[in-house]
């Protein structure tokens, strides 16, 4: 179990807080990909992909109320 606080505010268009870690300071990246990417899928025959992928790299306050340094991805 991670000593991290969680946050359920995930804003799809990037207009809000891009971080899914609260009590956080650091670097973030947000990327939103529309369902137009070409895909190959021999199992189900999927043809298109979309994604919302983010990173957070910095300092956060954990459930132990201590500061930690970490790197995270929202996938």
């Amino acid at each position, binding site marked *: 179990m991670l000593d991290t606080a*969680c946050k359920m505010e995930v804003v799809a268009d990037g207009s809000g807080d891009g971080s899914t870690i609260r009590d956080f300071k650091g670097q973030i990246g947000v990327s939103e990909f529309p369902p137009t990417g070409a895909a190959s*899928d021999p199992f189900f025959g*999927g043809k298109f992909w979309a994604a919302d992928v983010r990173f957070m790299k910095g300092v956060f306050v954990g459930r132990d109320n201590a500061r930690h340094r970490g790197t995270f991805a929202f996938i």
Partner: protein
Amino acid sequence: MFVGAGGSQQVHDYNPGEENGLFWTVPIPSNSVHLDLEDATAALALSNFLIDDYGSVGNAISGGKEIGTALLSMHIRWGGSARRFNVVNGGLPTPFRATGFTTGATMSWSAVETIGGVTHTVKGEKNEADFGLVARERNGVFFAQNDDDQNDDGGNGD
């Protein structure tokens, strides 16, 4: 991943679940991420990252079981079309402030997945994001902090 155009007939939904208490958010190696905020560029690379496939967002959010597990590799690059932004929102339960750039981004990925004992490779060809940003952010207890210690905001990894 979808069979139909426009995001219909979803057949794969790769996400790390919420077992760690975080919403689809997992720790990754610090060297997976590189950001140069002065150049408004960044990169995220993961290789053979173990992840669940829930089949669809609906199944994942409703607490359904995964349909398979995969080793996911992805590469995202942020850059181009940079526009500076600065946002402050103190009205949220978790207030935040961020300064950085909206950018373009590209991503490609592949997943070696086992479903029902059968292993196959799923691939997502390179595509352009319709939104991207790179920024320095503070939220929650750090929202009101005024110092700007570069060594305390992720620049040196974990």
